[in-house]
């Protein structure tokens, strides 16, 4: 049994397909895996990866920033500002963003934007498998 997965960003639907299981991490709640038939669920996602395991066994991994997940019936949607597929991440740029953020933090360790940027860059690198 599978369900329909949609990754929706404000600009467009970035991914749509069938899946057997979706693994995400919610804010404060830790990792959570959804399989078809999961009770209706709405959660706030941490800046973390979302893994989609397709019926053929392959998995797609996305870096998700500021998102929500909603599971309803046979549909699961992930709403987020940014969702990047592992294969589409620009490693060089992520590395650069990470360096920039670290540099900013070394000057002012209360720079919230830099903390966020660092978390995002680290996630990107991790998802890209560096």
């Amino acid at each position, binding site marked *: 049994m599978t369900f329909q997965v949609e990754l929706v960003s404000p600009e*467009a*639907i970035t991914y749509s397909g069938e899946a057997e299981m979706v693994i995400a991490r919610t804010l404060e709640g830790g990792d959570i895996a959804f399989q078809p038939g999961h009770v*209706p*669920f*709405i*959660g*706030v996602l941490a800046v973390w990866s979302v893994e989609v395991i397709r019926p053929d066994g392959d998995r797609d991994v996305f870096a998700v920033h500021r998102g929500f997940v909603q599971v*309803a019936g046979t549909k699961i949607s992930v709403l987020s*500002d940014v969702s990047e597929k592992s294969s589409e991440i620009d490693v060089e740029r992520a590395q650069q963003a990470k360096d920039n953020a670290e540099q900013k933090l070394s000057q002012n360790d209360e720079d919230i934007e830099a903390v966020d940027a660092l978390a995002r860059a680290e996630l990107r690198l991790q998802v890209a498998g560096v």
Partner: protein
Amino acid sequence: MAGGKERELRRRIESVQNTKKITRAMELIAATRVVKAQQRAREARPYAEQITTVIENLAAGGAEIDHPLLRQAENVERVGVIVISSDRGLAGPYNSSVIRAAERQVQNARSEGADYSLIVIGKKARDYFAFRNYTVESFTEGISDNPTYEDARRIAETVATLFTDNHIDRVELVYTEFLSIGSQKVATRRFLPLESTETIATEGSGDSKNTDSFEFEPSPEAVLESLLPRYVEARLFGALLESAASEHANRQRAMKSATDNAEDLIVKLDREMNRARQDAITTEIMEIIGGAEALGDDDQREDLVPAGAEN
């Protein structure tokens, strides 16, 4: 010398033709942009719809909290007006109608005894309000053509901060709704405070018919708290995209009629020029005939004016 008028008209026709080329090019550019902008507006819809669905489900789950974005001020002391205009002109009535609607909101605020804060997007509205000595609280340019979500997020954040800091107590959003390629209209919407979640839910698309109770993580309140700012951003983003599509549609229409007018003008000027040319020739012939007649002799006249050369 005869032909002076003709030359002048010829120059004029040339200049109209050049203008026509420009307006025609602008029309074609606007035509492709409007398709793109329309597509972007369409692509952005699922997100806004899904967020509304989540709010619907939250409302059904009984989440009702005291969020700063829901604060209903008892006494409105300052009204924020967001106006979305364009950076460039030549878009027909697009800018003037949206600016007029925004000015009306400012006047409404004043007549209620409240102060106003203008949050202006697009150079045209800024120029208008600055020229009339309105104070412009915040101004953003260079995005109205092709807005990104990041732009919407930044502006929405500015506005939300003004609102949650009690600097403004109500926010109206004035933009141009894109109904279809042939019809756009200025819309004024209450932007903040947000309606209660129930109202958002009943106004929503309502595609969630399931009455199953949802599980929330961390909690319904926490979900709503991080969801509401997203909802505000998505609404502003939607308005920006619709305005962009409307701007291009308006420009296309304006440039099409400018091109048509240029064509009509060219036809008219062409006729006028031909008449002037004919007149000049006739005058010249008359002068020659006159000269020949003055010389007196009938034989000589026939030499000077060959048969059929009246024109």
